[in-house]
């Protein structure tokens, strides 16, 4: 195998040419989405033109086209490219002949029995199965050629979409062999390539979805249109525990284009009911919503008095008392008293909204015996189960038409908007697309939980961390909606493992006495999974506290971390890389630097943030250096995209994001993008990303950088100003 130089431009041009100008190098999600892989023919002589479908992952057509099934949601993280690369590598395919279709339903696509896209796990969980799928097909194609040519299969190989003999004297394309290959027995253990043999994996193959995303051709859930479809917007109560008391539909129905106004019940835990305004298009529906808002009376429910400051007060009071035990090592309470120096610090992280760039949207058509759903979802199986339940049909009568996701961020793991679309369509019997106005999208998000975290910690006479008692108080996303996530702590308490994520087994530092307590607050504010999940709060606190301990010990923050790693095998190299690339040891005038490191799902990631004082006296981030060890990197350019985007996503949260709770709901001031402050272009510092070369099994990259940037930033502010910031956001 000879490695081909792959420049991004030549590949893009080749793929544009191969697909006829601006046509896409993949099937647009649509009717093909739910099509199952065609079964392999029972018999075949090898001469008739039939497709070869050795497994759920690929089909090779007689025309040499290789169609690869994508079982994960393309939400920006690049799986539409990186996962097919795994199949194509082992197959020896011609990358220009690859098409990708969104696929649903085969048991092979599931994780824990469900098909969903979560936790930066797509590449890691697909790395072996997809390579094996490609290798299986390769061996069957080789067996077919060996039979046709009457030679030993060991003398053959695949390359660029053909089986060749190693002597180079003959070749047959995959398409020519497809029919015969379908009759070959699948190999039990097809050999996989060693990394040294890879020609595609490890190279910056351009994303297959990029051409459609620069021409406006890419279709997201919000873009779906079909004959006879109506558009709905929702009006939900202003409070999380609210409900409709009464409303007068007449003012909304008076708006030209508004067809129906209907009340919709809750479609699941932590989802309120509401009123759907259904119209010919968005604008009429949105105008109807405005008219309706004036006429509706709400019952605000039991939590109508709730606001941010009362919640912080309640959470803080809980944090000051001992809490349910999540993890214990040593005798932390006694050890605090025996420490040489101690600290007692309370940190606060706010509720955060996802603000997927595409507001929540989905279309559905419920009719007798069949339900179709068009949306971009991370929770593929959950949407199908929901459609089956609401539509009253069997799951195999549901067709999920997966679309591109205008960000996932954990928000699209929820199925509230699909619940709306299904219920409205069921009522009306026509296809209905629901679009949540942005105000609705933020006001009825499942937020990153607010947390109050108290840490008492101490160092010994050498300065090393000696004791650490850490109590997190936050709401649990699992307790209402995924009760199976809830675990039992060492003392029998109900524990949400996400709430102590990053502080227990994956905690990077050695110390003799550590106690993690975790109180589920049950405030009633709907919370969910937000890119980076529990670690986004906990690593902010833990890595800020490590900085506080380094200061107590009068040690350099990187040296202090290096000296106290529990297992320096990979973490030390990542810290050293961040130190070297950031120029940590060469102080710069007027610049403060801060560091943070974490183990996120097996990926070790570190950030060095640099801040400077601006002319108006405020402090602004000027540079982020990210170093990561995520094992083998399937596509280094997509990997960098994830680190760059993740770092700035974390920075956005750290600088300006905060949902304000008032009167039991989201304060209108933070319910749209004027008041919910996302990082803007001119506020984004330079981001430099560095990957530790590795042939180890891959781990994820979508979330790790998110979790280390906020503490690195707070630590940099401390380095510059001497001020320890313990409450987010910092901007």
């Amino acid at each position, binding site marked *: 195998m000879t490695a081909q130089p792959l420049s*991004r*431009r030549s590949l*893009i041009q080749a793929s544009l040419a191969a697909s006829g*100008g*601006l046509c896409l190098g993949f099937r647009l999600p649509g009717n093909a989405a739910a099509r199952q892989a065609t079964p392999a023919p029972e018999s075949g002589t090898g001469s008739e033109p039939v497709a070869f479908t050795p497994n759920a992952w690929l089909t090779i057509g007689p025309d040499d086209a290789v169609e690869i099934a994508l079982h994960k949601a393309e939400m*920006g*993280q690049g799986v539409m490219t990186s996962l097919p690369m795994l199949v194509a590598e082992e197959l020896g395919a011609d990358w220009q002949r690859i098409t990708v279709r969104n696929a649903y339903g085969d048991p092979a696509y599931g994780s824990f029995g469900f098909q969903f896209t979560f936790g930066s796990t797509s590449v890691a969980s697909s790395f072996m199965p997809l390579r094996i799928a490609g290798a299986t097909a390769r061996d069957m194609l080789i067996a077919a050629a060996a039979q046709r040519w009457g030679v030993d299969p060991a003398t053959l190989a695949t390359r660029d979409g053909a089986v060749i003999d190693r002597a180079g004297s003959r070749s047959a394309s995959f398409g020519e062999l497809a029919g015969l290959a379908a009759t070959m027995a699948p190999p039990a253990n097809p050999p996989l390539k060693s990394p040294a043999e890879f020609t595609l994996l490890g190279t*910056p193959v351009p*994303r297959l*979805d*990029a*051409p*459609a*995303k*620069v*021409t*406006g*051709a*890419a*279709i*997201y859930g*919000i*873009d779906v*249109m079909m004959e006879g479809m109506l558009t709905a917007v929702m009006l939900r109560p202003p409070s999380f525990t609210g409900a409709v008391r009464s409303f007068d539909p007449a003012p909304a129905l008076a708006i*030209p*284009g508004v067809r129906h106004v209907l009340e919709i019940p809750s479609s699941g835990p932590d989802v309120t009911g509401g009123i759907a305004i259904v119209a*010919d*298009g*968005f*604008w*009429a529906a*949105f105008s109807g919503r405005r008219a309706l808002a004036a006429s509706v009376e709400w019952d605000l429910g039991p939590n109508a008095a709730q606001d941010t400051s009362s919640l912080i007060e309640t959470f803080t009071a809980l944090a000051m008392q001992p809490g349910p035990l999540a993890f214990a090592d040593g005798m932390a309470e006694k050890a605090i008293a025996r420490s040489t120096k101690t600290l007692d610090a309370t940190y606060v992280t706010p509720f955060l909204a996802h*603000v997927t*760039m*595409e*507001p929540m949207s989905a279309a559905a058509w419920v009719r007798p015996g069949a339900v179709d759903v068009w949306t971009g979802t991370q929770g593929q199986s959950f949407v199908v189960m929901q459609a089956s339940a609401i539509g009253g049909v069997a799951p195999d009568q549901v067709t999920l038409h997966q679309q*591109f*996701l*205008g*960000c996932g961020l954990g928000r699209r793991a929820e199925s509230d908007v699909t619940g709306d679309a299904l219920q409205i369509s069921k009522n009306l019997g026509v296809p209905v697309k629901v*679009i949540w*106005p*942005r105000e609705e999208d933020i006001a009825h998000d499942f937020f990153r939980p607010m947390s109050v975290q108290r840490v008492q910690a101490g160092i010994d006479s050498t300065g090393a961390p000696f004791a650490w008692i850490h109590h997190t108080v936050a709401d649990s996303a699992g307790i209402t909606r995924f009760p199976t996530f809830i675990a039992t702590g060492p003392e029998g308490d109900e524990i949400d493992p996400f709430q102590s994520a990053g502080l227990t087994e994956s905690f990077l530092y050695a110390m003799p006495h550590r106690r993690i307590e975790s109180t589920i607050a049950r405030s009633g504010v709907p919370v969910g999974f937000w890119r980076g999940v529990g670690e986004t709060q906990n690593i902010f606190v833990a890595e800020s506290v490590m900085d506080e301990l380094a200061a107590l010990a009068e040690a350099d923050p990187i040296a202090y971390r290096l000296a106290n790693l529990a297992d320096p095998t990979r973490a030390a190299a990542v810290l050293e890389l961040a130190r070297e690339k950031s120029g940590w040891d060469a102080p710069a005038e007027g610049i403060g630097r801060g560091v943070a490191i974490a183990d996120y799902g097996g990926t070790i990631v570190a950030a060095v943030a640099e801040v400077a004082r601006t002319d108006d006296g405020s402090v602004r981030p000027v540079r982020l250096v990210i170093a990561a060890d995520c094992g083998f990197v399937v596509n280094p*350019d997509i990997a960098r*995209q994830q680190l*760059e*985007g993740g770092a*700035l*996503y974390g920075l*956005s949260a750290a600088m300006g994001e905060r949902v304000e709770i008032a009167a039991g709901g989201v304060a209108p001031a933070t319910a*749209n*993008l*004027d008041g919910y402050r*996302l*990082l803007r*272009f*001119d506020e*984004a510092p*330079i*981001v430099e990303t560095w990957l530790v070369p590795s042939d180890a099994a891959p781990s994820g990259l979508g979330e790790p950088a998110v979790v280390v940037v906020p503490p690195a930033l707070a630590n940099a502010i401390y380095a510059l100003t001497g001020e320890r910031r313990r409450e987010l956001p910092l901007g």
Partner: protein
Amino acid sequence: MVSLTVNGEVHDLDIPDDMPLLWALRDLLGLTGTKYGCGIGQCHACAVHLDGVAVPSCLMPAASAAGRQIVTIEGLGAGGLHPVQQAWLDEGVPQCGYCQSGQIMAAAALLAADPAPDDAAIDAAMRPNLCRCATYGRIRSAIHLAAKERVS
């Protein structure tokens, strides 16, 4: 009746006076490349060119765009890729892609007015456009690249 000239074609639309251009483009003309993100002028996912200037289409009544040249992402490259779109591919900008129509329209309008913008000019032109995937660094590189390719 409102007469709109979109990507060189004239369309006569029977729409209410207050309907924003965004929804006329998306729901009536099926031009879904222009995106909705906030409806209040804060994200510019909805940016289109109005007589060559990038504007958010979610606030402007379609009626007020009558008689002016409206160009959307679908009409940007005349039969092929506009240099900005090509630069976007060369720099590997898009992630989820949702904001990118607006980003590209903003960048194309900037380069039409200022063929060699410096970083400050890019900051000023791109500040209105939000990207939740935070592709900002690559957008900056792509704008510089498109400017350079145009000169050479």
